[in-house]
C-alpha cells in the first residue's frame, strides 16, 4: 500500500469459486491465487479440479476442491456451512443455450433459470450467511454477470433475463449486506473466448459480429475479467459496492 495507491492483495483471504474448472472460473481462481488468496474450487469435473489444484498449489496458497453440481442445494449447503474460512465468493457457475425467443424450449428455460438464477442466489445466500457466522468483519461477493445483464442480444432472451436478474440481485444484496461490510458487485464481460463460447466463435459470422460490435476491436480475455474480479475482491475497491465493472471494449457505450 502506497500513499494513495492500493494494490490488489488477497493474502490471508479465502475465496470460493463456483464453476471453477473452466473458462472464467478457472482464470479467476488463478488470478486470486496469484494475489495471495486461498482457493476453494467447486466444479463438476474431478480431473479438471485436480489439474487446477496443481496450478494453484504452485502459487503457494491453500487449495480445496469440491466436486459438486451447484444445483445440488443440500450438498452445497452442507459444504459451505462447514467452511472455517471464507471472505470472498466468485459466483461464477453459469450456462447459456442460445435460442430464438419463439423457439425457446421449456427445458432450456428451466436449465438456465436453475443454474444462472436460482443456484446463483442460493450460493450467494449461503456464503453471505457463512461469512457473517465466521465474524470475518468484511467480505466481497462478485457475481459474474455479462453485457447481456445490461443490453439484449440475438438469441439471448433467456440469458438476458437471468443476467438482468443477477444485476438486480447484486444491488439488493449490496444494500442488505452493507452493514456487515460485505460488498457485492458484478462484472459484465463482453463475449470472452472460453471453452463454452468456443463453439459460438467457430461460426465466422458470429466472430465478425462480436468484433464489429466491440469498438475497441479485440476479444475480451479471461485475464481481463479475472483481474477485474481480483480488484473487486480486494481492499483496493473497498468503497465499491452494488455496482458493476463493465469489461466490454465499449459494446454497451453505443
Amino acid at each position, binding site marked *: 500500500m502506497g500513499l494513495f*495507491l492500493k494494490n490488489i492483495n488477497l493474502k490471508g483471504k479465502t475465496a470460493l469459486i463456483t464453476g471453477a474448472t473452466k473458462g472464467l472460473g478457472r482464470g479467476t481462481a488463478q488470478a486470486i491465487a496469484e*494475489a495471495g488468496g486461498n482457493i476453494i474450487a467447486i466444479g463438476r469435473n474431478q480431473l479438471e479440479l485436480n489439474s487446477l489444484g496443481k496450478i494453484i498449489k504452485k502459487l503457494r496458497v491453500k487449495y480445496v476442491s469440491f466436486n459438486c453440481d451447484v444445483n445440488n442445494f443440500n450438498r452445497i449447503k452442507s459444504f459451505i456451512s462447514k467452511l472455517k474460512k471464507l471472505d470472498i465468493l466468485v459466483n461464477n457457475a453459469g450456462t447459456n443455450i442460445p435460442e430464438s425467443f419463439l423457439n425457446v424450449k421449456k427445458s432450456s428455460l428451466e436449465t438456465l433459470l436453475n443454474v444462472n438464477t436460482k443456484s446463483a442466489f442460493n450460493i450467494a445466500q449461503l456464503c453471505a450467511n457463512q461469512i457473517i457466522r465466521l465474524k470475518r468483519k468484511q467480505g466481497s461477493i462478485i457475481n459474474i454477470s455479462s453485457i447481456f445483464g445490461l443490453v439484449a442480444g440475438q438469441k439471448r432472451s433467456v440469458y438476458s433475463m437471468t443476467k438482468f436478474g443477477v444485476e438486480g440481485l447484486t444491488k439488493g444484496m449490496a444494500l442488505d449486506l452493507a452493514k456487515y461490510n460485505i460488498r457485492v458487485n458484478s462484472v459484465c464481460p463482453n463475449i470472452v473466448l472460453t471453452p463454452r463460447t468456443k463453439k459460438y466463435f467457430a461460426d465466422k459470422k458470429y466472430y465478425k459480429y462480436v468484433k464489429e460490435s466491440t469498438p475497441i476491436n479485440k476479444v475480451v480475455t479471461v485475464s481481463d475479467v479475472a483481474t477485474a474480479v481480483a480488484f473487486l475482491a480486494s481492499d483496493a475497491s473497498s468503497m465499491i459496492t452494488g455496482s458493476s465493472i463493465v469489461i466490454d471494449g465499449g459494446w454497451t457505450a453505443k
Partner: protein
Amino acid sequence: MLKKINLKNKIALVTGAGKGLGKACSIALAEAGAKVIILSRTKSDLIKVSKIIKKTKGSSEAFVCDVTNVQEFKNILKKISRLDILVNNAGNNRPEHFTEVKRENMEYLTNLNMKAAFNVAQLCSQKMVKAKNRKKIGGSIIHMSSQLGKVGCEGRNVYNMNKFGIEGLARGMAVELAPYNIRVNTVCPTFVETPMVKKFFKNKKFKKQMLSNIPLGRVAKESDVATAVAFLAGETSEMITGTSLVVDGGWTAK
C-alpha cells in the same frame, strides 16, 4: 493471469492536481510508475504535490494553469513530448436550490465542469492520436465524474447537469477513440474526504443525511478513488471503455 497496476514508461496529465482528488490521483499514478504532469492554478499547491511525488521516488512536472483558459492549456501541451493518460479532474461545485441558482454560478460551473473538461479532453486526444505507436501502446482518459452523474440530489442540479453531461461525453469519446486504442471511462465517487467536501460537512445535519445515504456508512477515502483511477489508467483495464467505475459505497444501488 492477474495483471498488476503498473504504469511504467507512461506519461499522465492530471488537471486540478493541487488539492483533493487530483492530488491523490497524481500521487497514485506516480506510485504506479507513471511520469505525471500536474496542473493547478495555485503554484504553492503544485510545489507541495511535487515534493510528495519526489519523496515516493516518482517523477512529475508542474505547470500553473487555469483550464478554462484554452490558450494557456494549449501552450502547456506544446511543452510535453507525449501523452498516454489524462485524468480530467478539474471541477467545482456551488450547491444551490434549483429555483435559487444564480446565473453566474451556472455559467461558472458549466464553463469549468463541461466546457473546459471538453476542451482539455479534445486537445489531449488530438495529441494522443498523433503518436505513431498509439494503437499498440494504447491510451486512457479518465473523467472525474461523480455519483451525481448517475442520480439526482438536492441542491445539486447544475452539478448533476454537468456530471451527467460528462457521462455522455465519455461514451461518445469512447466510441470515437476506440480505433486508436484510446479508452475513455469515468470514475463516479460518492462524497470523498477532500477539502471541498469537508467544507460541506461542517453542516452536521447535511453530513448525517449524506452518510445515511451511503449503505457502507462511510465516505470514500481519496485513496479509494485514486486507486480506481490507476486501475483504469493501465493495462489492468485494457478492455474497459465507455463505462464508469462507481466508487460510492452503494449510494446509487438504491
